[in-house]
């Protein structure tokens, strides 16, 4: 039959071809692609003392959503659904986030919901919106994430475990604190304090350099908020437009002097774990055909995502299992990826996952990560999208992966393409 068909089939068998996937397939542009036309975040500030310490989560979200309307120029009435990932809010934050969308300028016809998949909530929100678009449920949506750890982080975050849960050993492990279990994992897997401190110092250095060069300005939406000066006691309005957790001059040696936080002979401390922070991020998603019809500028494409479970006590391994799975779904391998944004919950687990998967260190978190500028739980997954897409564009590269470990033992990863 068709000689050309036969020729291209043979060609694909020899080259490894595009029939089953591969990078070339990923870079194709099709009308039913799910594309990103705006991605931004607020600054991320230190919990309890940073610029957003007196700002409620919903206010951060309202700011970010308003920013999305302004930057993309989208008619807010066209946005059919907004999903906000948020972890600590009582009642899931459902009421406040709906209110925040109205404040931001969305009409009452725009639906809003919140979700909580712990540290991947922001990514899950984007994935949920993308899936709703893909299956035709909505045309345009926003995946977002927010956390005000200043106002909502505390002992009330996990409710009491029942006797039933306590009686099941693996179930009871779900409430072991992240610090303790990561300490144990670091010890069991032989991740040394020195290597963790070196990784953390690199995160600080990369973030400080990026900040000094003003590279975060593209993704950060400045927000005017009220701030109470603890010394003078006066409340004033300030504009928050930079990550205040980034500290220049941090070295592996200076981190080496900090005392371990979770065990006397431990290796994890405040300097090589993610910071407690406040922040919000949002991503505007739609089909490529819709974006072209509306004249939206396409900055990237969502490809696919994976979700996996791992033992609760080894939750830090999440990316190690989620990344190979997302490769399989996308039909690519690690060499096809230009940048990995892997959340730095702890230097120990991020480093272990990267080493075990054999990832090139230069491809991981090129602008620093949660160790340097913080990990506002629900926000991080959506924050990584803007960090990734802007950095890919800056370097003229294409394919990125965002991934994170998830408390109670899960991992999530997603593949994105910058355009």
């Amino acid at each position: 039959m068709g000689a050309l068909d036969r020729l291209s089939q043979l060609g694909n068998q020899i080259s490894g071809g595009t029939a089953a996937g591969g990078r070339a397939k990923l870079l194709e542009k099709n009308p039913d692609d799910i594309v990103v036309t705006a991605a931004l975040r607020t600054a991320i500030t230190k919990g309890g003392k940073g610029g957003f310490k007196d700002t409620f989560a919903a206010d951060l979200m309202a700011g970010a959503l308003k920013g999305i309307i302004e930057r993309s120029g989208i008619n807010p009435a066209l946005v059919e659904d907004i999903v906000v990932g948020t972890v600590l809010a009582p009642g899931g934050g459902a009421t406040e986030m709906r209110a925040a969308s109205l404040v931001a300028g969305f009409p009452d016809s725009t639906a809003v919901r919140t979700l909580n998949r712990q540290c991947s909530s922001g990514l899950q929100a984007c994935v949920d919106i993308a899936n709703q678009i893909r299956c035709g449920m909505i045309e345009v949506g926003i995946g977002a994430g927010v956390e005000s750890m200043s106002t909502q982080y505390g002992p009330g975050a996990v409710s009491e475990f029942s006797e039933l849960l306590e009686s099941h050993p693996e179930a009871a492990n779900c409430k072991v604190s992240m610090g303790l279990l990561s300490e144990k994992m670091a010890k069991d897997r032989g991740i040394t304090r020195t290597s963790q401190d070196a990784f953390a110092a690199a995160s600080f250095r990369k973030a400080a350099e990026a900040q000094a060069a003003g590279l975060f300005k593209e993704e950060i939406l400045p927000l005017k908020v009220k701030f109470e000066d603890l010394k003078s006691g006066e409340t004033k309005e300030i504009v928050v437009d930079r990550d205040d957790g980034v500290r220049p001059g941090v070295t592996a040696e200076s981190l080496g002097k900090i005392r371990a936080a979770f065990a006397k002979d431990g290796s994890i401390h405040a300097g090589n774990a993610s910071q407690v922070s406040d922040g919000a991020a949002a991503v505007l998603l739609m089909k490529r055909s819709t974006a072209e019809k509306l004249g939206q500028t396409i900055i990237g494409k969502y490809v696919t995502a994976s979700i996996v479970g791992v033992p609760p006590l080894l939750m830090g391994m999440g990316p190690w299992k989620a990344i190979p799975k997302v490769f399989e779904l996308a039909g690519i391998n690690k060499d096809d990826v230009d940048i990995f944004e892997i959340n730095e919950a702890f230097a120990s687990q991020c480093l272990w996952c990267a080493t075990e998967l054999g990832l090139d260190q230069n491809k991981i978190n090129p602008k620093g990560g949660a160790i340097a500028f913080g990990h506002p739980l629900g926000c991080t997954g959506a924050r990584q999208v803007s960090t990734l897409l802007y950095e890919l564009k800056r370097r003229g590269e294409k394919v990125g992966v965002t991934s994170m470990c998830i408390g109670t033992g899960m991992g999530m990863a997603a593949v994105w393409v910058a355009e």
Partner: protein
Amino acid sequence: MASMLEFRTPGYNPYAVKYSPYYDSRLAVAASANYGIVGNGRLFVLGLGPAGIQVEKAFDTNDALYDLAWSEINENQLVVACGDGSLKLFDLATGDFPIMNFNEHNREAFSVCWNPIAKDSFLSSSWDGTIKIWSPSRPESLKTLPVGCCTYSAAFSPTNPSIISCVSSDSHMRIFDLRTPVTAKYHLAYTIPVHAPPQGPTLPLLSTGQTFAGAVPAEILTHDWNKYRDTVVATAGVDRTIRTFDMRNPAGGPTAVMLGHEYAVRRLAWSPHASDVLASASYDMTVRVWSDGSSGGAPPPMGPAGPNTIPVGTQLGVMNRHSEFATGVDWCLFGTGGWLASAGWDQRVLVWDAHTLLRG
């Protein structure tokens, strides 16, 4: 390497070679003009004698030939898979034309396999995404099994006439059991993602110490049932890796992997003489002979390992005398065991003894 017998197929590039199950001196080669891309096909039936390899008979077809199978009930008959989607049954005693034509596939037919147990049926697979089961005496197919994507290779189990396996471009192996009731799944018993790691809480290690995290989906071009262990099937294709699977544990991932080919593997054949030995022909122009390590004779390089370890098979030898893609390989059923015929796009059929390759 010691001497080997050679036959040339001028103007035709072989796609498959098969020994006759009746005579130790007869083999057949399915070949195509212009590498099977456009043009005629020719089926060569060859005889091995004191004067080397001679043509006993040749049949010409209007389109390329991609595979052939000897009949299990008539020593003179064989069926070919043709580029126009047809299957043709030829008889060595009857003229130059096929005695039967089977025209149902809508695209290129890529494989044929005679039922070795029931002997009264054969099957074919095609780029049209179906497997068809045929009787040699009826022009219409007995049954059609949908696969849904280009199916490069399909086969009957050598021990059970009702079990059919196939591999396809979607990186999966499918197992059909004709004894199951006809449902929406058309006898599909299970599907094995060939590229995937085993299902389980932790990823296994290869016996070389690497983590085995699975691979990217890739087209599977060939597979073969082990002739001794009736639940073991080997697969290979574009990702260059040969894997074995145990049908008793379809979710268990590969039971062994064999690494070494530098381009896609086009044809696999288990030895009829040893339960752990198989041969592979590849676009890297080599034919390799492997042990999957199951016999215990050749322990994997890193020694025995835990339950979560996948053994890496041992390469017993490389035959590198082809100067173009090696596309066909088959074992002679007779004699001391170890005689192989291989065919390649260098328009050559080589007959050689695997023992001359073995190390030590």
